[in-house]
């Protein structure tokens, strides 16, 4: 039977990540950072990756990782979501690392990312769904030179290694580019999400090395996107959890009409429903993380369920958080908007809920009507 609970080790891991984030990255600190010219907290990233060793949790020990699994990575993502921590975890430790794990000749790169020695990014639009065809906007020529453009790449601005899906002369390939590099321009985008950077990446004859050829590149990319979509559900769970906790605390405190607004049944019922949504989200996110950890045959279903459900729960939780805070929830000063922006952006990340449901239609044999 799949284990949907948290092990003691996982709870310890959570406690150390939570402790670090409480110390170094509380919402006020994050808010103060987002408008500076260094929106990422790279010191925090170094502590997470090097001291706590969380960048290589689902990387085998022989490849320089912790030899744990996606279950542990998922716990870290929950905490990072709960703090909307501005670190390149999704881009580096999830997307790029997972793609590299599917390549035959990427041991050095995997080790560098897993140890936190380097930061990576996977050059696909953050909106790319696992079911999308292999991208062809970047081409690689016979000399290994890349040209083309990819928009909205997560965490590209701070990446020291880009993993680039490219159309080669013989078919799809995954290529590595060390950053900074001649012939690569990374332009940061003003994003809806203030706490995870996205950037447009343009290649103009940039040198690259081959990580995977046509025989494995497609599978490596799809698996990376499936893994990331499944793990993102845990981040969304963390976002939703902060929103629920913060809102419950607020409606207990805030008085109107001579009583706490949380004593009105209209709000109690809403929060009870939201709590129930989170019960489901936690089970679905755990199931996906566990299925990925055990390479279960049910991975595609587990991921589609978690991704479609948790996306929507995070958005709903963040929207309720703003609403139940009243006017203060509409202010920049209150951190709720950071969570709303993260939730709404991740709803479009790695496949919208609708795309994941469409994928399910095939997976569980509930085909669309014949036109």
């Amino acid at each position, binding site marked *: 039977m799949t284990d949907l609970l948290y092990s003691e080790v996982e709870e310890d891991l959570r406690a150390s990540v939570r402790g670090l984030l409480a110390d170094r990255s509380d919402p006020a600190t994050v808010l103060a950072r987002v*408008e500076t010219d260094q929106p990422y907290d790279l010191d925090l990233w170094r502590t997470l990756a090097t001291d706590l060793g969380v960048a290589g949790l689902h990387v085998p020990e022989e490849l320089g990782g912790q030899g744990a699994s996606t279950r542990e990575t998922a716990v870290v993502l929950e905490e990072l979501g709960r703090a909307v921590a501005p670190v390149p975890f999704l881009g580096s430790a999830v997307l790029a690392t997972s793609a590299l794990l599917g390549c035959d000749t990427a041991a050095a790169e995997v080790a560098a990312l897993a140890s936190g020695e380097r930061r990576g990014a996977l050059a696909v639009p953050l909106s790319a769904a696992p079911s999308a065809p292999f991208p062809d906007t970047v081409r690689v020529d016979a000399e290994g030179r890349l040209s083309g453009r990819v928009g909205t790449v997560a965490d590209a601005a701070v990446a020291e290694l880009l993993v680039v899906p490219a159309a080669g002369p013989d078919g799809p390939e995954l290529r590595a580019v060390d950053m900074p590099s001649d012939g690569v321009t990374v332009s940061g985008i003003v994003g809806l999400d203030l706490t995870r950077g996205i950037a447009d990446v343009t290649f103009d004859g940039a040198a690259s090395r081959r990580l995977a050829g046509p025989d494995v590149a497609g599978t490596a990319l799809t698996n990376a996107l499936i893994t990331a979509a499944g793990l993102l559900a845990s981040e969304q769970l963390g976002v939703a959890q902060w929103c629920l906790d913060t809102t419950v605390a607020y409606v207990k405190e805030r008085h109107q009409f001579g009583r706490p607004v949380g004593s*009105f049944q209209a709000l109690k019922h809403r929060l009870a429903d939201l709590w129930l949504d989170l019960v489901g989200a936690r089970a679905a996110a755990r199931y996906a993380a566990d299925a990925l950890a055990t390479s279960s045959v049910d991975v595609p279903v587990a991921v589609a369920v978690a991704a479609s459900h948790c996306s929507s729960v995070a958005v709903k939780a963040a929207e309720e958080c703003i609403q139940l805070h009243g006017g203060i929830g509409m202010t920049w000063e209150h951190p709720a908007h950071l969570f709303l922006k993260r939730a709404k*952006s991740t709803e479009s990340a790695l496949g919208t809920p609708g795309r994941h449901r469409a994928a399910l239609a095939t997976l569980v044999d509930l085909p669309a009507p014949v036109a």
Partner: protein
Amino acid sequence: MSTATTTTQVDAEDLRRRVRDLLAEHDPKTTDRLEFLRARFDAGLAWVHYPVGLGGLDAPRALQAVVDAELEAAGAPDNDPRRIGIGLGMAAPTILRFGTPEQHQRFLRPLWTGEEVWCQLFSEPGAGSDLAAAATRAVRDGDEWVVTGQKVWTSTAHTARWGILLARTDPDVPKHRGLSYFVCDMTAPGVEVRPLRQITGEAEFNEVFLSEVRLPDTLRLGEVGEGWKVAQTTLMNERVAIGGNAIPREGGMVGVVAQTWRERPELRTPELHQRLLRLWVEAEVMRLAGERLRQQLAAGHPGPEGSAMKLAFARLNQAISGLEVELLGEEGLRYDDWTMRRPEIVDFLGRNAGYRYLRAKGNSIEGGTSEILRNIIAERVLGLPAEPRVDKDVPWKDLPR
């Protein structure tokens, strides 16, 4: 109310003739904008349902559309309602109903032409949904009132010449009975306006600090102690102003998404299609419900039913703008600009999809939250019993805070 003696009902033909006369005497191409707007007001073509002499002709409200269409076709300037929404939607109907003839003459014309912007000084840090708990004090001093307190979330206070102000004049009686309603001179000494930044990045609203602001008694609207009653008129009108405007089909948020859908076939999926169509139907149904409500109310003042329009408007705006971000996919991850600004206009349909999504969140908070509106519908339309109240019959000063 100073309605003129009953005149013969003005009809559409009559209005068209009056518009022609206005245009003949004040060619919009050669007339200064403000001069034209003043002339339009004086011709009774500003808001035709207002009394003669106050910008109207005592005509049915529905005929306003005839005037607007004729003037738009002639290329006449409008009064840029997005700049003066609070004046038009909330202050004006309250002044009309409770103001003295002198107040009518002084305030309504520059309000309508946009020469004077208005803001609403109602909400306070401790009094939002529970507006009647307002703590800003107004103390009588001869012919003046001395006002001290703090208001919050005050939209357009930074551009406003006047504010409609709810203040406590008697702390010794239960909260609903100790309030009075004033027009606050925003240029008076002691009025300080500080920007409050919103989740959209800009500061559309403000905090307003009132420190011993002296207002002459001639700026009071309604009787002393009747502020709550006067405020009800403002609030009922606010809710209609936010959700109940006459719009053509696809005139609101749904029009923006419909256009994207038509222009961008590559974004379409069957699932989004179903959701869009469902929202399109809801938007059209609400548009018709608003139309029907306006026909019912042709003469009277908006009642609690108006709250339903704002409730639906907020829900739809949020659902549709949320769908738009999702529909745009990769593009939906982008935002146009977070720079802190103090905008002059408020446009729910403005800027980009991210802005519309974020701004729409305010629609279910401003002008009474959706929860409060549901309570109003439940209690005042459906007649359901109110919750037991602990705060109604206690003197304001003894309420727990």
